[in-house]
Each structure stands twice: as C-alpha cells, then as structure tokens.
C-alpha cells in the first residue's frame, strides 16, 4: 500500500458536472435492472386515456340530445369535445413531466430506515442527488414511452382541430413542462421531508395525491369549476402539474397574460426550492439517526 494518506485534490466545477452525469448514468442503469416491469408499467399508463375519450364522448352526446341548439359544437367550461380529448392527451404529457411516483414515500422510507445517513456522511447533497436520479428516471421513461405516445397522438390527431400553436406558445408550453417537472419534484420532496417530523406519512401522501388528482386538472379542466371555487383553485400551485401546460397549448391562456402566468409559476418554483432546502436543514438537525 502507498503508506501515508495523500489529500484528495479539490473538486472543481468540471468534476461536479461529471459527478452529475455519473449519478444520472447509475440511476439509469438501476432503472434498467427491472426492464420488464418498467416497460409494462409505462405502457399501462396509456389505458386511462381510452376511458376518458369514451366518457367525454358520452357526456357531449347527452348534452346534444337534451338541448339540440343551432348545430355549433357544444362547450363545457370553454372546451368542445375535440378540445376536451386534446386536453386529456396534453395533460398526459404534462403528467409525464410533473408526476413523481414514489418520491415522497421513498424519502420517508429512507428517513425511517436510516438510509438517509449515507447522504449525511458522504460529500453529496440529498436533494441534488434525488433530483438527478429523477431526471435519469424520466429520461428512461421517455425513451420507452415516446413510441406509444407518438402512436396515440397520431391516432388522435383529428382532435387537435387548431393544429400546432405558434412558436412563442410552443416555447411557453415547453417552459411550463420543464417548470412543471421541477415544481412536481420540489413539492413532493417537501412532502417527503415531513417524515423528519412525522415518521409515517403514507396517509398524508394519499391525501395529497387525491387533492392533486382533482385540483391539478388531471381529472377535468379547471375551467369547469364553478366560481368562486375556480378562482381559489387557480391560486394554488397544483395547476402547474397538469392543467397549465395543456391550457397553454390549447391557447386557453391569452397571449398578454402568458408571460405573467409563467413568472408566477417561476415564483412558485423558487418558493418550493427554498421550502425544500429549509425543511431539509431543519429536519437533519432534529434527525435521530434511526436504525442502528
């Protein structure tokens, strides 16, 4: 052996970037350890959209029967049938960015079983590490899901009656997807970090998922909500997880409000980043290092 210990060289920015890359690669390799389960899980996510198409078809038919009107397409909450289906297809994309399966419960499990110690001992930041692993998981997911996504969108192309939105809307749409991913991550990580105070957070996660299901626009477009409920829900950050990107794409948000809305979203993102950091530093201080 080489005798006395030589100090390690300082870590520069390039080394950091390389670390991020290796974390991504390792998380990706781990994902691939159970390819079969992963691929099946990915494909099953497309099933609900078929039910949605049938359900909303039936609802619009029923309305057309009870009030025949002048032949113009019926609208619910500002959406006609084609837009409604397009909306659900688009929220599927939004959810593909913003949903974080197992993040909160994963953090809680690590706190409870003491695996979180690893991040306290090693020169690495837990939240950054989880974020990078999540990026890797998402990339793996897109790699598998892009085929089925393309097929579904191709089959449903007729529902997109307005065609592709203009470039500036497209940019806003992509920006909202990216921020949706980050808000989804930091929001759910913050819920997971509650486990520093309450060891068992499963029911809390369940409640959050329930609220998120209705109030993010995953179940129905938020513009369907009656006032003043709609006004309040609109103030919540949950809409960025599903409704907001789809609404941008379908041009439900007027051009002159687009920038403001995106800035509000960015402000929410900053809020959740700070909340997460604060909770982590407070939580670690009261952590008692469970499990041996």
């Amino acid at each position: 052996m080489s005798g006395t210990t030589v100090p390690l060289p300082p870590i520069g920015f390039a080394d950091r970037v390389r670390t991020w890359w290796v974390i991504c690669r390792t998380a990706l390799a781990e994902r691939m350890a159970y390819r079969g389960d992963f691929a099946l899980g990915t494909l099953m996510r497309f099933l609900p959209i078929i039910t949605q198409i049938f359900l909303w078809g039936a609802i619009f038919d029923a309305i057309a029967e009870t009030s025949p009107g002048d032949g113009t397409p019926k609208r619910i909450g500002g959406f006609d049938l084609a837009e409604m289906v397009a909306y659900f297809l688009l929220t599927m994309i939004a959810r593909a960015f913003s949903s974080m399966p197992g993040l909160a419960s994963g953090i809680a499990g690590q706190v409870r079983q003491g695996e979180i110690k690893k991040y306290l001992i090693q020169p690495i930041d837990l939240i950054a590490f989880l974020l990078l692993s999540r990026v890797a998981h998402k990339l793996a997911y897109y790699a598998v899901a892009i085929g089925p996504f393309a097929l579904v969108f191709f089959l449903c192309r007729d529902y997109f009656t307005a065609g592709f939105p203009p470039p500036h809307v497209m940019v806003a749409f992509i920006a909202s997807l990216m921020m949706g991913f980050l808000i989804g991550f930091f929001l759910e990580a913050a819920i997971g970090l509650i486990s520093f105070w309450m060891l068992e957070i499963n029911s809390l996660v369940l409640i959050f998922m329930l609220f998120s299901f209705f109030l993010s626009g995953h179940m129905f477009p938020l513009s369907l909500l009656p006032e003043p409920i709609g006004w309040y829900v609109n103030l919540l950050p949950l809409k960025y997880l599903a409704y907001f990107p789809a609404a941008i794409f379908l041009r439900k948000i007027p051009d002159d409000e687009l920038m403001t809305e995106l800035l509000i979203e960015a402000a929410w993102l900053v809020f959740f980043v700070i909340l997460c950091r604060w909770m982590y530093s407070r939580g670690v201080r009261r952590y008692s290092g469970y499990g041996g």
Partner: protein
Amino acid sequence: MPIIEVRELTKYYRVHRKREGLGASFRGLFRREYTEVQAVKGINLTVEAGEFVAFLGPNGAGKTTTLKLLSGVINPTGGTATVMGYVPWERRNEYRRRFALVMGQKNQLWWDLPAQESYRLHQQIYGIPDDRFRHTLDELTDLLDVTKLLGQPVRELSLGERMKMELIAALLHSPEVLFLDEPTIGLDVIAQHTIQQFLRHYQQERGTTILLTSHYMKDVAALCQRVVIVAGGLVQYDGSLAGIVDQFSGKKIVTLQFAVGVRPDDLARHGTVLETQWPRVKLGITRADVPRVLAETLRDYAIEDVSVEDPPLEEVIADLFHQVS
C-alpha cells in the same frame, strides 16, 4: 495534537411514550407524552492519529450514538467534539471527504447494481483522480479477494462478500479516520477472520485512525491496543485489554487437582466453589488471598496439580456491564 477530541459530549433523545390499548393510543393523538432517553451522558475521549481503538459496551450503551455524533449523522445535545479539527455535525464537505463510516447492518451500495458501478459513483462523489482510484481499487479487491465479484449485482452476494464490498466502498477515498460499527456482525468465523486480518494489515500499512465497535471479543483482541468501555452513556474504562481484568476483577481462578481418594468438603471457606469434577475443583478466590489459600491447601491435602488463572475476559466484561446497567 490529537486527531479526535471529545469533551462532555451528550445526546438526549425525546421519545414519544406509547401506552397500551386503543383508548390510550387515541388519547395519545391529542396529548403526547415524552420520555427523555439519555443515550450519551458526557463522554470524554482523546484519540491520537494512528490509534486503533475499540468501543465495548452492552446494547444501548451509547457506542453507536457516539459514532453517529462523530460522523455528523446526528447533532449533539451538548458538549464539543472535533475530528481532524472539524466539528462533525457541521457536515463540511472537506471533512466528509476525509473520513468514512461503515455500519455492519446498513449498506451504502446500490442493491441492484454491481459493486463496480457504486464504486465509480463514489469516485465521482469523493473526487478521486482516475489513476489513484484504479490503484486503490485493485489493491483493496486483491487484498479481500473479491476481484471476480465486482461485476455481480450486490443483491446476489453473500453477507460476507457484501461486507467486504462495503469496506472497499468506504476505503476508496483513503479516509484518514475510519469509524466501524459492528463490521463483523452476523458473519461466519472465516469471514470474520478475513475481515480482521484485512483491517489489521490495512491499519498497519496506512496508519489510519480507526474507532471500532464490536460484540466479538476476538475482533477486539486481534486488533486494538486500546479499549474504551462505554456503558450507561459514560466512559467506564479506557486502557489496554489486559488492564480490564486487573481493574475490574479482584478474583483469580485456582484449580486444584487432588490425589485419588482425597475429597475435602470444607473448600468453601477459602472462596467460591465454581466447579467440582473430582478430582478437580475450581475455586474463585480474592486476589490477595491466593498465596495464603495455596499454602494452606498444599499443607492440608495431597494435591497433584495446581493452576492459577485470571477469569475469562468475556466474564469480567459481562460482570462489569451488569454492574453498570
């Protein structure tokens, strides 16, 4: 200058007290009762660079809590500690790149991936230059004889193999201070021996400062010059392994082998009769009385053989633990 300095270190946990029964659980939702558990009550310790120190103590004595405090996993209630000049619970990256903690019951490696992948990640996290990483890894896998297992998912390895892999992960960045918490727990005799051998060799070559907790006296006897006994959250003894017997056991064990047919029935007046297997009798005798008892018995009875021994270390320590708790 000492590498580890601990002064009056305390750690109290507030534990929610659960009472039995559904009604009590329900009331507990509204009015929580807490009890304070004093895991570490004021530990003082100074360790010089290059020492190999063993922490001994019964379960719940505060050994692991002390290691957790020194590795910065938890914050203390009071007192101070520095390791290589750093305050552990500040968790500075410079500190974290210079020590390692191995827990026998926890793994740091990715369960579904070959250890090799985890090592590469470690290399990045700790910022180990390529050539140094390869050199260290070759050396460690060679010493522990696990080169062939590097490419196998960790979940497929045996407990002993996994422990070796964990050790390698902890040593890749050549830590100057190493905390080992029960590194041989649950391992068979051969694996225990391999790990002991490895640790001894590694420590001698590198001069790494090591703090080890273990329940296996063999680990301790094989590795550590210095033993710190922790019980009831306090340091009860700090010195050599042999010194424990001198300090805590006032007794010697005298074995007398009598001539055929000699069966005295008054031996209990000399001390405690520990074992009777005619013609051999074992007596526990207060140390100061040994010369007198030997003289008297040799004078009074026909005796063929005599031996005087220290009581077994395990027993002395068990007695000591018992007294403290």
